[in-house]
């Protein structure tokens, strides 16, 4: 089965392999800053992969998944505020909290569909955002400064250890997703996306599968958020601002939403653009170097208008034979 997964998800394995070796590269060229960038890529990529379960595979446009990242981050932050430094417990708390919240929000939100679903998920995210803004005790709007969590046996102040903790979590999430997408559950979820009525006619309850997918994606976002707090050494409501939910969606669509590896590719491109566009603009038009979004915005529109299937789709179609395209 492992061999099967290796064959089926080549791109994902190649990316993970490169990520595993990346610190060697940065050490060789003395670019420790880039480790930081790549950690951010892995964290946002992980969250986007989680969101993609409902977004890409389930066809539910959830506009509020950054809230689960925020919940995960606050689970770490608040635990530490009360003196519980153990990172593993914090992860556990994040998973449980996001699971329960995902269940409640999913149950309520999935009563609606279409635009109403987009908006109700946004509403729940905004609710949680303002809830944390109102928590004066944990910094409110200004946020909560925290230390890296204490993962027993792993001293995170050794910079590379945090890198590999995030990396291994990403590998774990990737394997879970690969198995999930090919399982009975994953197949039914994708069937619901293409035709919900037919799935129902086959005697299955679509809502059950949709809610399950929603909960799993919420949990993965929570895990990403929990580690994000350790990476940033700071938690604030900003992590769950609605524009971050937008960022996650951009990352997915940029990479290709029908691929497990899509969100990871998207995260790499998105965050590299964020890092490099200002420098690039600085060379060409120094006066607007800070306004790199003026290039980035139209770029997004171009991706939507012309690049169907995201980068994975564009690149993939070029290299696969026409007959093989269909079962992507």
């Amino acid at each position: 089965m492992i061999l099967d997964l290796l064959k089926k998800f080549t791109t994902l394995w190649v990316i993970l392999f490169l990520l595993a070796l990346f610190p060697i590269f940065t050490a060789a060229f003395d670019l420790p800053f880039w480790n930081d960038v790549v950690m951010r890529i892995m964290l946002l990529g992980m969250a986007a992969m989680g969101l993609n379960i409902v977004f890409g595979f389930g066809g539910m446009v959830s506009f509020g998944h950054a809230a689960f990242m925020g919940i995960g981050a606050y689970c770490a932050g608040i635990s530490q505020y009360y003196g519980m430094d153990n990172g593993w417990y914090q992860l556990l708390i994040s998973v449980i909290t996001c699971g329960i919240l995902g269940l409640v929000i999913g149950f309520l939100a999935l009563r609606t569909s279409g635009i109403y679903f987009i908006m109700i998920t946004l509403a729940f995210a905004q609710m949680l955002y303002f809830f944390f803004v109102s928590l004066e005790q944990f910094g409110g709007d200004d946020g909560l400064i925290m230390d890296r969590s204490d993962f027993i046996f792993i001293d995170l102040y050794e910079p590379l250890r945090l890198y590999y903790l995030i990396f291994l979590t990403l590998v774990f999430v990737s394997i879970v997703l690969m198995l999930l997408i090919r399982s009975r559950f994953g197949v039914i979820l994708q069937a619901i996306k293409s035709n919900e009525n037919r799935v129902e006619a086959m005697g299955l309850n679509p809502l059950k599968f949709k809610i399950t997918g929603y909960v799993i994606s919420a949990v993965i976002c929570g895990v990403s958020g929990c580690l994000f707090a350790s990476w940033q050494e700071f938690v604030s409501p900003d992590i769950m601002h609605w524009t971050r939910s937008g960022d996650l969606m951009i990352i997915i669509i940029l990479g290709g939403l029908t691929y497990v590896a899509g969100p990871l590719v998207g995260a790499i491109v998105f965050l590299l653009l964020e890092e490099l566009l200002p420098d690039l603009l600085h060379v060409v038009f120094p006066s607007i170097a800070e306004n790199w979004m003026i290039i980035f915005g139209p770029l997004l529109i171009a991706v939507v208008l012309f690049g169907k299937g995201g980068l994975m789709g564009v690149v993939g179609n070029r290299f696969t034979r026409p007959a093989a395209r269909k079962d992507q």
Partner: protein
Amino acid sequence: MTATLLLEQVFNGLQAGITLFLIAAGLTLILGIMDFVFLAHGSQVMIGAYAASAVTIATNNFYLGILAAIPITFFCGYLLEWLIIRHLYRRDHMDQVLATFGLILFFNEVIRITFGPAALFSNFPPSLAGFIEILPDTPYPVFRILIILVGLVCAVAIHLFVSRTRVGAMVRAGASNPEMTAALGINIKILFRFIFAAGATFAGLAGMMIGPLTSVEPGMGEPLLILSLVVIIIGGIGSVRGAFIAAIIIGLVDTIGRVMLPMLFRTFMSGPTADTAGPALASMSVYILMAVVLVFKPTGLFPPKGA
């Protein structure tokens, strides 16, 4: 004292609600008729506010600013629909979300490059700076009253237009069933572009009027956009009447909550804590309201007939 304060806040809430209605009126039709998730509607508010403020500052005449900004916002909406939006109607919602998110980034940066990142300040003319007594001993700024009046006039005009005219009948038909409307020989493309540009103008008008009250800065439209989306969802997508009622409700809940909740909290909390928690929970209450409405009526309070 409390009654006076409450009355004042009711008027503030009305003013906020009317402003939201102006933004939501066009957006509800864009969402309802074109089934198009348009997130850059907040940018239209910003464009209106900037156009009016820039002309006002240049000519030192507020009315001239408004007069110039109305055609500018209409033209912006028209151009935007023609250049980009019309290519996206047939795409699914996630493509629309992404593309219009890109538009927000683009517009914010254009404004930031042209006018700088700092807020733009323009004053309304001294003739509008006074107060009138809405009740004995209860002065209220003339400018806010004016906003309420202009908004109400617009609301009545939109209502009459939609319910009494031939084009309005087409708009209503479009909201109920766009395919059937097109099949009856109505040029849906032109109708879409017109609605889009008109919606942009009303959103721009909202921006022009609140410009002197709030800070005119890049990204000013986004919080308003999110709130007007809430209004549209509560009112029922595609329903102008629903948008009006929901806008007033949201305006009142948000404004009054912002004042009353901290006062309420101060009775059992320390002052600073209540001052932070109150407004945030007031903002939260809007979304709670929306979630409750959607859970019980998944298509909003006043879904258009036949939808």
